[in-house]
């Protein structure tokens, strides 16, 4: 066995130029595979992080029926006195923080400009422990429950040329039953601008204190949602806590349902799934091309070494041993090509993980398309793990071995006499 391995190893480097080309096709294919996986994982990781930490948090509790109508931002399916549930929710060891919020449809009016937006009324003291909006302030201060004032997304401020200290009118939609829209208009000062990194949040969200919104909408102590932040982003924790909360609220008088960020970001997850499938097809095509290169190299080797194969048969080598010899050669091509590919992909992946990639580098149009698909802006980062490198390496070697099977089988089919006569 060792002799066959030694022979196979030396055979790989017989036709150096051809071997280099084959190595290159394998390594470039695998390198691109690693970079693609790194980017896709990074996009998903960053998107999920942005969704959880700037948009939805981990879990939300709604009055039954609210979730199905959530796109209409209804104000008639509310939870009464939400604080009564806080203690119970916090009994779960994985629950870090709880707050109540009201989501409402609104428009921001400045002079002749009017910008539709989503209003979020939150508890100014609890919200920074749940979401990163306060941490992402780029100007001004955070909202105060005792003062009137709001923070808005920096992108939104740019759109209608607003800055900290400006007084604007907010038109709050208080009811939208049938075709009858009712609203309340109020003047309010912008106290801060935020840039959370999530374009969906930064371009159309205004944040006001909860008490202020409850007065403006006249819904007393009611809220549209209770937001639950967990101690970590782990999926098991999420599902386990969701199930636990579901059981708790099944037995309450008020009908309340529990939803995770996954339920709320189902569109993003569907896009991500489709993207993974289409990327897998592209990657398979790339690897197929690389494996064609290996098959070609090995077939050339069989053709060039026909007489030598005949001689090996004459020395008493069996078909299985001849087959093994060529499969080992394929495996060596796979090992070296995969190592090189992992090095190449690993270096680029590492750069993408540390330095990131500016979305604007692709141009404004692409930036807008990217922002429509992903809750990411400015720079996106790769996510490279050792597991990806290891799996890709093994995958590369396996593909190479499979690609060498046909040429190896062809070698064993040779007739020793004809092979010895081959010129």
């Amino acid at each position: 066995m060792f002799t066959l391995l030694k022979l196979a190893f030396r055979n790989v480097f017989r036709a150096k130029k051809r071997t280099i080309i084959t190595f290159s096709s394998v390594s470039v294919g695998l390198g691109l595979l690693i970079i693609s996986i790194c980017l896709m994982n990074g996009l998903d990781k960053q998107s999920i992080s942005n969704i959880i930490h700037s948009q939805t948090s981990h879990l939300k509790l709604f009055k039954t029926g609210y979730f199905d109508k959530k796109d209409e931002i209804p104000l008639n399916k509310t939870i009464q006195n939400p604080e009564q549930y806080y203690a119970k929710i916090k009994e779960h060891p994985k629950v870090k923080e709880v707050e109540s919020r009201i989501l409402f449809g609104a428009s921001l009016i400045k002079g002749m400009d009017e910008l539709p937006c989503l209003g979020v009324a939150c508890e100014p003291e609890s919200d920074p422990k749940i979401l990163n909006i306060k941490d992402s302030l780029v100007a001004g201060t955070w909202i105060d429950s005792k003062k009137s004032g709001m923070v808005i997304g920096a992108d939104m401020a740019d759109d209608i040329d607003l800055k900290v200290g400006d007084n604007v009118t907010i038109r709050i939609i208080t009811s939208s039953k049938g075709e009858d829209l009712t609203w309340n208009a109020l003047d309010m000062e912008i106290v801060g601008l935020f840039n959370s990194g999530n374009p969906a949040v930064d371009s159309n969200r205004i944040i006001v204190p909860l008490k202020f919104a409850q007065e403006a909408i006249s819904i007393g102590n009611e809220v549209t949602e209770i937001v639950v932040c967990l101690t970590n982003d782990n999926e098991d924790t999420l599902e386990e806590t969701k199930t636990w909360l579901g059981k708790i609220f099944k037995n309450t008088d008020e009908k309340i349902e529990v939803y995770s960020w996954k339920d709320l970001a189902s569109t993003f997850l569907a896009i991500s799934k489709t993207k993974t499938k289409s990327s897998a097809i592209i990657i398979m095509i790339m690897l197929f091309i690389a494996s064609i290169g290996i098959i070609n190299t090995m077939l050339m080797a069989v053709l060039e070494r026909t007489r030598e194969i005949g001689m090996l048969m004459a020395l008493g080598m069996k078909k299985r041993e001849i087959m093994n010899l060529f499969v080992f050669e394929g495996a060596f091509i796979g090992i070296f090509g995969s190592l090189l590919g992992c090095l190449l992909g690993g270096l680029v992946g590492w750069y993408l993980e540390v330095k990131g990639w500016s979305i604007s580098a692709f141009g404004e149009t692409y930036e807008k398309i990217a922002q429509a698909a992903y809750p990411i802006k400015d720079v996106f980062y790769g996510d490279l793990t050792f597991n990806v490198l290891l799996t890709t390496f093994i995958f590369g070697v396996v593909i190479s071995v499979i690609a060498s099977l046909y040429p190896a089988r062809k070698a064993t089919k040779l007739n020793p006499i004809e092979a010895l006569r081959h010129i």
Partner: protein
Amino acid sequence: MSLIRLENISKIYKTGKVDFPALKEISFSIDKGEFLSIAGPSGSGKTTILNIIGCLDKPSDGTLFLNDTDISSKKSNELANIRRYNIGFIFQTFNLIPILTAFENVEFPLILKGNMKQKDRELLVEEILTEVGLKDFMYRKPSEMSGGQQQRVAIARALIKQPQMILADEPTANLDSKNGKEILQLMLQMNKRTNTTFIFSTHDRMVMDFALRIITLKDGHIHRDDKRR
């Protein structure tokens, strides 16, 4: 008991719809230790006989015995085993493995044969390469050696596993007359020392002169079978 016995061996090559009979009911036997030449003009069936005796090809008809065992209908893996343990080959074009040194080329059949410690194997290889006059060329690759030297390596490779017979298809055809003579002398010397049977094909008069028995073929038949003292 003969080493090899051929009984009514025929070989027909099919080329498209035309059958070409290369051997026609040939019978003869070869004893252990013979130094035998199969001679005849081109197309007379010399190489076909060597291929059948060497278990590289099967006869279309007839029976081939090795040590009185019928091996005509053995499967390819069984024939490979016979070649591995009992038969050594010397080719016209040397056919050494180009990426291996002379030492490694000679060692290769021993590795295939197995059951020998590396140290013993190395000693044996050194010994035989010294015997064929290549002590100073052991670690050269075939591309760094002359034709004569390469054929010496091939002889050493064939002999090292101590086979029952060595088959050589026109072993001197690619060598000049001086080197050709030296190779034949070496083969004869090895035949005498080891009592290994040597069977070689040739159409060269000078080569035939070395043989102790000459079987001459003509149109697939045995034309003459001459033994010398």
